[in-house]
């Protein structure tokens, strides 16, 4: 296998992203006495360039999708796609991270399960936890959240759609008023209602 250097991978993906390219950086980190370096490539791209960039990555080496991470930055929700390439070659694996920022007014992203079916778990989780819509997802049901979890509440968002304070202390009772233990004494009035 002809292995590309991190900068070459960044350049190839930048070319594939075309107008959707935002920024790229390569990082290294070494641990242990021999100080062997492990390497990472970080790219920021537009949503429109996600599929074509990923297809270019598949041409380099079929990636293992680790997870889609996230960050709520206020006006935007960032999806952080983590891929590994060159696994199976000792000490040569490279982490490729594609960050896609979505405006909260238009939280849609195309599915990548057509290219890597293993991304399904992570895409289902992002839909329910962040309130984004993965366009074309083969199975759009909830994954970790129960069926009776309220609609329109997205646990990982940090705005008004996040977990409200009154859901924090008695999560189990949300939406099941009839199941509350009526005989229990109410909590002391001085007890602050604070989600933190």
């Amino acid at each position, binding site marked *: 296998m002809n292995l590309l250097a991190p900068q070459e991978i960044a350049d190839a993906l930048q070319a594939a992203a075309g107008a959707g390219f935002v920024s790229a950086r390569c*990082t290294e*980190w*070494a*641990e*242990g*006495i*021999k*100080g*062997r370096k*492990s390497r*990472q490539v*970080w790219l920021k791209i537009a949503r429109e360039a996600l599929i074509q960039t990923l297809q270019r990555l598949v041409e380099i080496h*079929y990636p*293992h*999708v*680790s*997870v889609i*991470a*996230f*960050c*709520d*930055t206020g006006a935007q929700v*960032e999806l*952080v796609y*983590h891929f*590994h390439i*060159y*696994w*199976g*070659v*000792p*000490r*040569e*694996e490279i*982490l490729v*991270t594609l960050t896609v920022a979505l405006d909260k007014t238009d939280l849609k992203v195309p599915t990548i399960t057509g290219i*890597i*079916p*293993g*991304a*399904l*778990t*992570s895409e289902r989780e992002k839909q329910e936890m962040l309130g984004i819509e993965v366009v074309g997802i083969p199975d759009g049901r*909830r*994954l*970790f*959240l*129960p*069926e*009776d979890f309220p609609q329109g509440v997205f*646990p*990982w968002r*940090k705005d008004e759609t996040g*977990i409200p304070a009154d859901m924090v202390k008695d*999560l189990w009772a949300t939406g099941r008023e009839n199941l509350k233990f009526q005989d229990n004494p109410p909590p002391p009035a001085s007890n602050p209602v604070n*989600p*933190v």
Partner: protein
Amino acid sequence: MKTIEVKKPSAYTTQIGPAHPALKEPVMFTLDIEGEQIKKVDFVPGMAHRGIEWMGMRRNCIQVLYLAERICGICGITHSISFARAVEQIAQIQVPNRAHYIRAIVGELERIHSHLLWAGVAAHELGFDSAFYMAWRCRENVLDLLEYLTGNRIHYAMIQIGGVRRDIVPDQFPHIEESMKFFEEAYDKLAAVFLDDTTVQMRCRDCGVLTYDEARQLCPVGPTARASGIKKDVRIDHPYAAYADLEIDYMTPDVLTGEVRGDVYDRIITRLLEVKQSVDLVRQLISMLPDGPLLAIPKPAVLLAKLKGAAGEAVGRHEAPRGEVMHYVRLEAGKDEPVAWKVKASSYSNYLSWIPMMEGAQIADIPIIAASIDPCISCTDRVALVRQDTREVLTKEELHRLSVEKTRRIQASLAK
């Protein structure tokens, strides 16, 4: 078999208490079956979702470290190493080499204990309870060793951001070596029980197959991937802690048998080989243990102040017993808490592999196939079967009985 009418297959309408009797955590399977054969598999995890990431994004990094350790009761050090490594990369904290070695030693001991636990569970699911007791008896030895080294059987609290909190001193080396000898002997015994037994072979060979191509596309990790011939191991691919200094190779089943079939039997082989490999790695680590400090920044207040000034994003990875664990962390200057924290546990990646493994298998094979990926959040305590428009709920005990009966049938036919 009890037939229960369930109108809505919601996990929350069936009662699985927080302290239910099963060994593992809950996941609900919905299986479409024809006769004894499984046609379609669906599963619903999430009954044990505790919103840990939500909690973590409201605490400072040192608090998150201990919260991370409590994500899993079996691989506690896995999550704290991963989180600490991510934060160290953001804040550019150079961990002393001695700490890297101690991290790796505890990580390998944890792998031995987790794989022995799994071997016991697998034996139990097959109906070999003597082997189950034997594997767990061996596991006690490594738990005692972990308690001797760290103070705790689980949740060792060894990791601090920038190093480790406790030393391993030369006085302790003979005790460690004694245990390593014990595990070498234990490996021989377990290999005889699991690999040379005809019944185990008949139950596990070509059962729950995950092919190389399926594994490549569904992206499982750890022994589940390696048993299908995927050479993927964070310790080798993307070395961290002391692993870059060690002699270490991928443990795929062909190391022992010369072929890869990707079935349950191969997953047993892979895990047993890894127990042996961990013994070798601990010995290498002890012999190479360098001198030096344990912590880059010994004072927690100084560390917190430094982390408050740090900004950036990084990924911390660790090869847990079940496969890669990954923590994505993003810090902002002036904030105590991480603005983003995503935990990817190993079973998260392995779930999807159940579908090709189970389709075409028999109901009695569900327990061993489900257990064969060593699910961390899993339990076959309730399985719903859709058979000719009626919905039945199998309890864990019922399933276990079916599995044991199949083993007994095979043994009886062998005796003839």
